[in-house]
């Protein structure tokens, strides 16, 4: 069975629920959401108005789930959604929406537009309208275990090098520990120093933890492309590994959508609650800080600012923790205008970065971040998502801005009080 228009429309019908119906019923076409969307503000093209990105799904709702709409359909005065329209909307739904949810914060009638785009992608994927790049990533996620094709031996090689550099072991497949760490492929490939950083922090704080060789991948292409059963399968792998290792917590790494997938969507995708808890690495670090298990020394003197990854802050609820942590290690921490839950997206989330077709608009959308940075002129930019990080580096380079992008976890690791050395000297 292959993707088909019919399956797509059927999928739209499956997605309708009370919130969607309430949202569509409430829209007054005021256009405020356009001003919340970086794809509109940076292009000025009204088709990027967030609510417009839902138009085909709205029509399915109206024609199938509202009395007047059904009446209009029966009278033949409403035109059904066509496959050509879905094709037209494909770029709006995948290339120019990062699911950042800023529009959902601004809509005066309270429409959670990002919630609906997430649902709309189910129908788009089922009707064969997902972008090539995301399809490839999703297929690799299922067949290889990583959207970027990172296999266990690669991770093992990285681990071996970390172990050699740090002179300690990185626990893999250790049963009965408290925490199971997930990693994003991005971290394994582009930012392997993250593994070293986290190892050092955990050694410092005395955390009992492990990485699972069966499910080390945190990302979930299934929720980006919008196929719940694929997303559920990826979540199941993590749940299975966590259950086998009998851990109490699963740690979501510095990746935005991974947190959304494992923390918030996961239990709903697999249809049952977890018997472990999911924490974001920043949540854990801040908890360690308050309990005194994480001690840092020295402060960065550079002017630092923090970019909130949308799925971690606005859509995930981890907002205060990174600020607490940064203040611990930064002497000059400044907020961007509109930070925290009103932060502007980097422009590459929600699968946009995996979609080569979106490259041009992705870099255009970055200008919004540039404008934010221009207002405060930081020396360095800190974030907690590898995907944001790559996009930020990309955009900064493109705009010839000399601002390094740093990982918050790595900065913390660089400022650990060196008790490990003392311990190391004792037998």
């Amino acid at each position, binding site marked *: 069975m292959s993707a088909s228009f019919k399956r797509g429309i059927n999928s739209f019908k499956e997605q309708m629920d009370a*919130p969607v119906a309430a949202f569509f019923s409430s*829209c007054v*076409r005021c*256009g405020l959401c356009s001003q919340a969307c970086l794809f*509109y503000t940076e292009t000025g093209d009204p088709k990027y108005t967030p609510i417009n990105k839902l138009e085909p799904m709205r029509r399915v709702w109206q024609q199938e789930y509202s009395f007047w709409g059904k009446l209009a359909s029966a009278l033949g005065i409403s035109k059904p959604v066509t496959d050509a329209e879905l094709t037209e909307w494909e770029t709006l739904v995948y290339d120019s929406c990062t699911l950042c949810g800023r529009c959902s914060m601004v809509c005066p*009638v309270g429409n959670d537009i990002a919630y609906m785009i997430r649902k709309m992608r189910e129908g788009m994927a089922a009707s064969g309208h997902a972008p090539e790049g995301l399809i490839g990533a999703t297929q690799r996620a299922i067949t290889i275990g990583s959207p970027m094709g990172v296999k266990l031996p690669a991770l093992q090689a990285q681990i071996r090098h970390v172990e050699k550099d740090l002179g300690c072991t990185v626990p893999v497949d250790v049963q009965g520990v408290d925490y199971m760490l997930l990693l994003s492929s991005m971290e394994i490939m582009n930012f392997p120093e993250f593994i070293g950083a986290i190892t050092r922090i955990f050694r410092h704080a005395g955390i009992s933890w492990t990485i699972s060789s069966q499910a080390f991948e945190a990302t979930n292409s299934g929720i980006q492309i919008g196929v719940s059963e694929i997303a559920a399968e990826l979540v199941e792998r993590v749940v299975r590994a966590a259950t086998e290792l009998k851990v109490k917590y699963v740690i979501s790494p510095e990746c935005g959508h991974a947190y959304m997938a494992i923390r*918030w969507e996961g*239990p709903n995708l697999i249809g049952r609650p977890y018997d472990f808890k999911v924490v974001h690495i920043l949540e854990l670090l801040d908890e360690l800080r308050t309990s005194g298990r994480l001690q840092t020394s020295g402060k960065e003197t550079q002017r630092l600012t923090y970019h909130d990854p949308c799925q971690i802050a606005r859509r995930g609820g981890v907002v205060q923790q990174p600020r607490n942590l940064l203040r611990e290690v930064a002497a000059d921490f400044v907020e961007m205008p*509109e930070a925290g*839950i009103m932060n502007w997206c980097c422009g590459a989330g929600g699968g946009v970065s995996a979609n080569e077709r979106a490259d041009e608009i992705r870099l255009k959308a970055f200008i919004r971040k540039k404008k934010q940075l221009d207002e405060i002129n930081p020396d360095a930019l800190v974030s907690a998502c590898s995907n944001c990080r790559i996009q930020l580096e990309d955009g900064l380079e493109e705009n010839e801005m000399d601002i390094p992008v740093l990982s918050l976890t790595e900065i913390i690791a660089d400022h650990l009080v060196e008790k490990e050395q003392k311990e190391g000297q004792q037998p």
Partner: protein
Amino acid sequence: MTETELLMWARGPALQVATVIFLLGIMVRILEILVLGRKANLAEARGSAVAGGLRTIVTRSFPDRGTLQRSTFNIVAGYVFHTGFFVVLFLFAPHILVFRDLLGFGWPSIPTPIIDATTLVTIITLLAVLLHRVQDKVMRFLSRFQDYLAWFVTILPLVTGYLAFHRIGLTPPTLIAIHILSVELLMVVFPFTKLMHAFTLFMARYYNGAIAGYKGVNS
């Protein structure tokens, strides 16, 4: 038909029909939404969905600073015409009488010169809103027939009410009849259009706030 007959028709059968369509339509649309239901969230909550939902119902009335700066006209004009409309609708003595007749209780009215001025300001604002809808590229792009229809049936009672109050053009009973009929037109159109947002926005805001509140975010 004499003007008194017209007025009596407007106050009588027409109002009955309009009331039935209005309330029946609203109930149908609200229940159509609610009955659809939603799945329980199985993820462990960080905050209260109910508290978040209730909070957002209130807080969404106050835009964030960035949005206010970027869409100043939209927000200010929106505030003015909504407030104006509700002041005129709910605080004008003759209107309160209708509500008292319907509900069995009333409330104090405010001086008529204030109502008069508010009406004028609201009408002018609505004209500006229409101009904005036509000129702003996003709003023009998004607008459908029903957006203009909704605008029309909203401004009509204000205009006819203003004319009736000042008895301009026609005899008072005719003007009042036209005014009442224009309100009935609004009532009839209401459940079929985006005007439903007056009711569904509470649901939309609640759901939005509940989804966010569950995750510990104040949306």
